[in-house]
């Protein structure tokens, strides 16, 4: 969590473009229609109810020579969900329609920001005009940023083909294509633009109107089908990398992959990854395929069930089995997860959560699989659950998941979500030597003197030995049927099932002794209000609590990584606060867990729009605990009620 904790004490360095605001810069050749694009985007922003400020920046010449550096035209917009006072310093997103536009504008882009570039314009001639020696899209010079480069020119030509425009005229529709993509990224309605285009060209040149609308729609459709990470940039929390050191950008999917590899290395085990393609989890499979020198085997299975079953098979054979999916896939894996609980084999199950139920919102984020992770299996099947709070944190959490799986012979669920998976942030590259290894141990000789091996003989933590097939003299059978104490032989006896159910529960409860105590990540222990989060709500909660504290409110941020079992001190910690607020992107799942475990009166703040929380939403909820505004459910009315305006009157 290096990049996130680093942020706490550097509030002053937070720039104007605060995370609930986004700065987008459209840049292209003067003839590319960037101002028109920016203007229309501004219109749609206003229609979407955002506050905004813009900065049109165009060359003096009406038509500067094409492709030149001084001919670059740009339009910047800063918009957000609360008051915007400037056009923003550094853009979060740069749309570069040609090499010159990139060259001029990219230095201003925030580290970790997104570049969208039209590869169709990155030809030799334009690169020369922009004074590039090499194509920046093809070397590492843009490494600090996310780059989405594709041939917008060709895609536009394709989209407007039916309208029989000349090549030049057709290419003029590029800006509408780009605008369509931008509208998709920020979830904007296309209709006002379509109306505007019809109004502008409709009577004089209906074909041109139709072509532009087609380009707009095509850009929008491209975003939808290509599943770009775009919309999530809207509330991209940008931790300022102020600690000295080596940094890189990292997405959650990359961080999970690297963390799993690091975890397997720390366990001194080869890793087996069984996966089946699903949005947004597939990226983990794609990443791990490229890391096979670390003893990684990847297997693209025929379905989600086979993916987890193969991973359990590999764990049985002595590797670290890993599988990953998203909610619907995890549902399919449920029975096999139960088998891993029953046979007590290590396994890591990564769930990149998305909006549900069923297919739900495949490309949108949600935290609604918490019940599924903690409770979602038949029988009493306890399983540790860890939740990553940011892309970089996913690295630490993946290692932690591997550690618990191996040390406790148990499946472990690692929760991320679509936002964490796709979002990228600067990450201070950790030193692998700074992590304590947790080498796996295999039973090499009988644990029963001369007799048959006892595969379910537990140690003082309730953990059974890991026995690899191929080991001389330790032949034994395991399975999903209830098993006798120590022997593991089939045994349905009432006392045995009672004892084994208790033992499985006790083992997982005991994991709480092997995890860090819960800390308060902002504010003091005890006080008026604790805002308790888990997972990717970290950013907006943290900013909201910070702002509330600046206003002098007695509020603290507690962010829980170990969702199950919960840290041992969490109950006492929460009881030290008068009130507990739990913002989460579901209908109140973690709130229920906290209430159940600690009998604390946790209040939910829920959101299930497929969009991350806005800081303002959490700020407002926090305020309702303090300001006594009528109508606020949790408001503690500090003043005489009769003095307040009465909305009923």
């Amino acid at each position, binding site marked *: 969590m290096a990049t996130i904790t680093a942020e706490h004490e550097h509030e002053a*360095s937070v720039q104007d473009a605060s995370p609930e605001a986004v700065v987008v810069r459209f840049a292209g050749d003067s003839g590319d229609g960037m101002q028109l694009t920016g203007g229309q985007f501004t219109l749609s922003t206003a229609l979407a109810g955002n506050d905004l400020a813009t900065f049109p920046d165009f060359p003096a010449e009406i038509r500067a020579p094409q492709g030149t550096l001084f001919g670059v035209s740009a339009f910047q917009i800063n918009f957000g969900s609360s008051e915007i006072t400037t056009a923003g310093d550094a853009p979060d997103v740069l749309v570069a329609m040609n090499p010159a536009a990139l060259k001029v504008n990219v230095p201003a882009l925030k*580290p970790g920001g997104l570049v969208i570039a039209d590869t169709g314009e990155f030809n030799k001639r334009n690169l020369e005009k922009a004074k590039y020696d090499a194509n920046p899209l093809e070397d*590492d010079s843009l*490494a*600090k940023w996310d780059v989405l480069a594709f041939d917008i020119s060709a895609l536009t030509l394709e989209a407007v083909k039916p309208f029989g425009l000349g090549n030049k005229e057709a290419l003029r529709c590029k800006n509408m294509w780009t605008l369509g993509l931008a509208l998709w990224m920020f979830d904007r309605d296309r209709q006002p633009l379509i109306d505007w285009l019809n109004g502008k060209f409709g009577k004089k040149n209906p074909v041109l109107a139709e072509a532009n609308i087609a380009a707009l729609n095509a850009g929008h459709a491209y975003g939808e089908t290509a599943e770009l990470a775009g919309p999530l940039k809207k509330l991209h929390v940008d931790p*300022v*990398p*102020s*600690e*000295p*050191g*080596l*940094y*890189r950008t990292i997405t959650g999917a990359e961080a999970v992959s*690297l963390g799993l*590899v*690091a975890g397997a*290395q720390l366990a001194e085990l*080869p890793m087996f990854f*069984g996966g089946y393609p699903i949005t947004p989890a597939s990226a983990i499979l794609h990443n791990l395929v490229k*890391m*096979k*020198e*670390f003893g990684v*085997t990847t*297997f693209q*299975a*025929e379905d989600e*069930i*086979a993916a987890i*079953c*193969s*991973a*359990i*098979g*590999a764990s*049985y*054979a*002595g590797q670290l*089995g890993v599988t990953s999916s998203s909610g619907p896939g995890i549902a399919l894996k449920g*029975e*096999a997860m139960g*088998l891993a609980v029953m046979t007590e084999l290590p396994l890591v199950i990564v769930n990149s959560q998305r909006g549900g139920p069923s297919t739900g919102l495949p490309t949108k984020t949600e935290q609604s699989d918490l019940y599924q992770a903690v409770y979602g299996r038949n029988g009493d099947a306890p399983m540790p659950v860890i939740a990553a709070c940011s892309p970089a944190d996913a690295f630490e959490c993946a290692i932690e998941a591997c550690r618990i799986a191996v040390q406790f012979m148990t499946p472990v669920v690692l929760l991320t979500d679509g936002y964490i998976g796709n979002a990228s942030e600067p990450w201070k*590259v950790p*030193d*692998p030597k700074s992590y304590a290894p947790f080498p796996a141990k295999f039973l090499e000789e009988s644990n029963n003197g001369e007799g048959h091996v006892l595969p379910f003989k537990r140690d003082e933590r309730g953990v059974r030995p890991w026995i*690899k*097939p*191929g080991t*001389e003299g*330790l*032949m*034994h*059978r*395991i*399975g*999903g*049927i209830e098993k006798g104490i120590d022997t593991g*032989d*089939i045994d349905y006896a009432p006392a045995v099932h009672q004892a084994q159910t208790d033992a499985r529960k006790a083992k997982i409860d005991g994991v709480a002794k092997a995890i860090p105590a819960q800390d308060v990540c902002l504010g003091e222990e005890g006080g008026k209000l604790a805002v308790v989060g888990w997972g990717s709500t970290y950013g907006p909660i943290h900013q909201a609590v910070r702002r509330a504290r600046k206003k002098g409110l007695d509020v603290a941020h507690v962010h829980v990584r170990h969702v199950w079992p919960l840290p041992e001190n969490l109950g006492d910690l929460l009881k030290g606060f008068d009130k507990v607020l739990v913002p989460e992107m579901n209908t109140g799942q973690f709130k229920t867990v906290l209430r159940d475990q600690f009998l604390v009166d946790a209040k939910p703040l829920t959101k299930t729009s497929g969009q991350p929380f806005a800081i303002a939403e959490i700020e407002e909820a926090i305020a309702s605990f303090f300001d006594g505004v009528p109508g606020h459910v949790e408001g503690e009315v500090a003043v005489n009620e009769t003095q307040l305006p009465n909305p009923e009157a």
Partner: protein
Amino acid sequence: MNDMTPIQTTLKDWESDQEVRWCPGCGDYAILKAVQRTLPMVNADPKNTVFVSGIGCSSRFPYYVESYGFHTIHGRAPAFATGIKLANPDLDVWLVTGDGDGMSIGGNHTMHVLRRNLNCQIMLFNNEIYGLTKGQYSPTSRVGTSSPSSPVGSVDRPALPCAFALGSGARFVARGYDISKDLPEVLKAAYEHQGAAFVEIFQNCIVYNKDRFDDFTQKKVAADTQVWCQDGEPLLFAKGTKGLALDCDTLSLKVVDVVAKEDGTPDWEAAGVAVHNVKNRGLAHMLVEMPFGAFPMALGVIYDDPRPAFETEVVAERAKLIEGKTADLGKLLSKGQTWTVEPEATHGLMD
């Protein structure tokens, strides 16, 4: 199996201390014995042997063999086996499944383990019924099977496991039955085949589908109703008085009468009897699809034409991918896209 010295075991060595809990008279007992006979024949090593099963009567099998065993979940044994074999290709993996487990709930996995050609032996015990759930009709039950879930007879048309296997790309398909004395020979051939070896074993469910296979398994009818496929040998049955020949007009098999030569041996060539060729996929399809009654039941090794095994290919692909690469975690973490924040510096931009 890397050991140079052959492992010497006896049938007894392969018996676990667990009490066998199938119904008295169940065909599974005979299959268990056949497997325990086969393992010493092929010099199998108990410590390197893993039996993997799904759910059902047949899937209790691993508990009774003194080796490693994994009784998994319904239909998924092939997926577990794939993970086991990819994690440790030196293990001998045997899959035990049934007609419900392997053809119904696990049909998908059966298909994929076969097309991938994982080096393992797949024994599908076909009793044409769901036994452990008390007798419902299964995907291999014949039309009209009356059962608790089909009181007036089932209407589903049955699947043919061997045809399914061939269709899925299996490179080894064989058939046997529980009480057959030749079953160990069939299993031995399956073991020796490098790749997925599919063996359908007809098995008598004494309780819910009793004597279903008597038409060809009973001693008095066996000779006339069984054709044992042997590579390079003519497809003869009924003590050499009948054979299978190719009908070139319909491109299908037909039963022909064979007369004895003067020395008493059958003059099969004169009758046009086909010679079995285990590498002939077309012939294999015809043999497994012969309707029983008009035709005999084809048994033995019907098809055996090896291709490189899946785990071998995976290992080779990995070796190719990692050639020249070293596993340096520090390097991996700082790969490609990095910049340095100097002390004192604000988060200035990289030039």
